[in-house]
């Protein structure tokens, strides 16, 4: 049995009185990439937001490093080491690239950590040289791919043990998608556990160690990516036949 980074037990989440996910139970082993694929509106984003704490109306359990974080605030969850890259980037559009990156370190930002933060910023620029070139630019003016890189960079600044990625390929040119997925693989190889949510099933299964299929807010299928790729239903619905 591999060490688990995160698991959910019978997780339900609600928008008002509408239930968006039902009895979702997933396991994310430490140091692995787990992908969740599903169509638009299947509840993928809701699941991520329930884990990161953005959605508070939920029942069931979210267990992270053997600790129940179901009812914790987003602030505390970030400090514990879960960092989310939200859907549609959600940058601080009027702030510069560098300010966006710095704010990523907000949860441990103080004078004492200055050199730690600077090292991390340098690391981020190493990962994404283009962001260093654009560091004084207002982030709202970046291209879609650059914005996605910045969103990942910002999340990485929080020193996460686990990163939640919501549709990183959305609205991005195919060539750049490949680049982004390379970064995800690199992040994972440097020790970060990844929970990835994607409509782009092919790309998501390629990088995953394990995967779940979400439909109508429920887990309908799970397995190794290889198994899912061979599954006739997955082939038909998510991989385009």
């Amino acid at each position, binding site marked *: 049995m591999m060490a688990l980074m995160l698991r959910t037990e019978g997780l339900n989440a609600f928008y008002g009185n509408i239930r968006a996910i039902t009895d979702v139970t997933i396991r994310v082993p430490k140091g692995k990439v787990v992908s969740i694929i599903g169509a638009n509106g299947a509840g993928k984003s809701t699941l991520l937001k329930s884990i990161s704490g953005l959605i508070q109306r939920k029942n069931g359990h979210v267990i992270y490093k053997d600790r129940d974080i179901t009812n914790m605030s987003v602030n505390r969850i970030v400090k514990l080491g879960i960092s989310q890259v939200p859907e549609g980037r959600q940058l601080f*559009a*009027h*702030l510069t690239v560098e300010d966006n990156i710095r*704010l*990523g370190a*907000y949860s441990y*930002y103080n004078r004492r950590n200055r050199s730690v933060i600077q090292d991390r910023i340098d690391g981020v620029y190493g990962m994404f040289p283009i962001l260093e070139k654009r560091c004084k630019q207002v982030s709202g003016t970046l291209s879609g791919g650059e914005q996605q890189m910045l969103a990942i960079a910002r999340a990485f600044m929080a020193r996460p043990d686990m990163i939640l990625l919501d549709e990183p390929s959305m609205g991005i040119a195919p060539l750049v998608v490949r680049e982004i997925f390379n970064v995800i693989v690199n992040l994972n190889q440097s020790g970060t556990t990844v929970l990835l949510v994607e409509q782009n099933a092919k790309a998501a299964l390629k990088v995953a160690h394990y995967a779940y299929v979400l439909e109508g807010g429920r887990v309908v299928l799970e397995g190794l990516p290889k198994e899912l790729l061979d599954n006739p239903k997955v082939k038909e619905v998510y991989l385009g036949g």
Partner: protein
Amino acid sequence: MEQISIAGQLFQYLITGITVGSIYAMVAIGFNIIYDVTDIINFAQGEFVMLGGLTMVLFHVSFQIPIIIAFILTVMGVTLIGILVDRLAIRPIRQPSVLTLIIATIAVSFVIRGAAMFFWGKNPFDLPAFSGRNPITFYGAVIQPQYFWVVGFLIVVVIVLSIFFDKTITGKAMKACADNADAARLVGINVNQMIMLSFALSAGVGAVAGIIITPISLMEYDRGAMLAVKGFGAVILGGLGSFPGAIIGGLILGIIESLVAGLISSGYKDAFALVVLLCVLFFKPSGILGNIEISKIKRF
């Protein structure tokens, strides 16, 4: 009687206008601080100014506390009231829309005004000028020493706030809340705390404005409403959310008022301020320094 030249007279109006305009600019800055973090227009902003003036009178004139200590106590006291406004009127509203919150601030302004009337009565109060009342004559214009304090404080407030918002992580975090509250939460920013801080800051700036204007124009319990209207005019004129805009808007409004009062009739000065406000809303709703693109995505 000594003949005053037209140029000297105009210069006098200009000086008076800049002084009054500096106060409008400070009220406008107060509006912008809260707007930039929350999208709320805080209509109790004028009440912070009024409280600043009257609390200073209480401490300095009634209690005879030395001016610097009284100044600090007043700013701290009004800042505390700003925090209370957030805690008691803004935060308890569940699932707030921006409009609901704005209406709540209007209610707050009524409550504060009523309480001030109860406590201080309806008479205006005076405060000794910081450096006496011996005017300086300069190119035919009479300048009260207090005018320098007003302009000086505006400059200090602007510099301090610019450093805070552009250089410190807390200032940047406040701006981040306005840009994207959910993303701000995801990097660990406590959005409620930032909203509270914005109310505290703008109450503090309001208090400073109230303290420095009282020696010039006195202060009474119901001054806040008109100051809020003028400050709001300055905000709209300069562009919602823009600090340089607030200063330019405030000064332009002050100078127009002063010129109208001097050249036409002092009875029309408030009317002219409002006419200017309407013209801006008709012809350039985004304001002088406002960005059309940004103003499109703004909710107000």
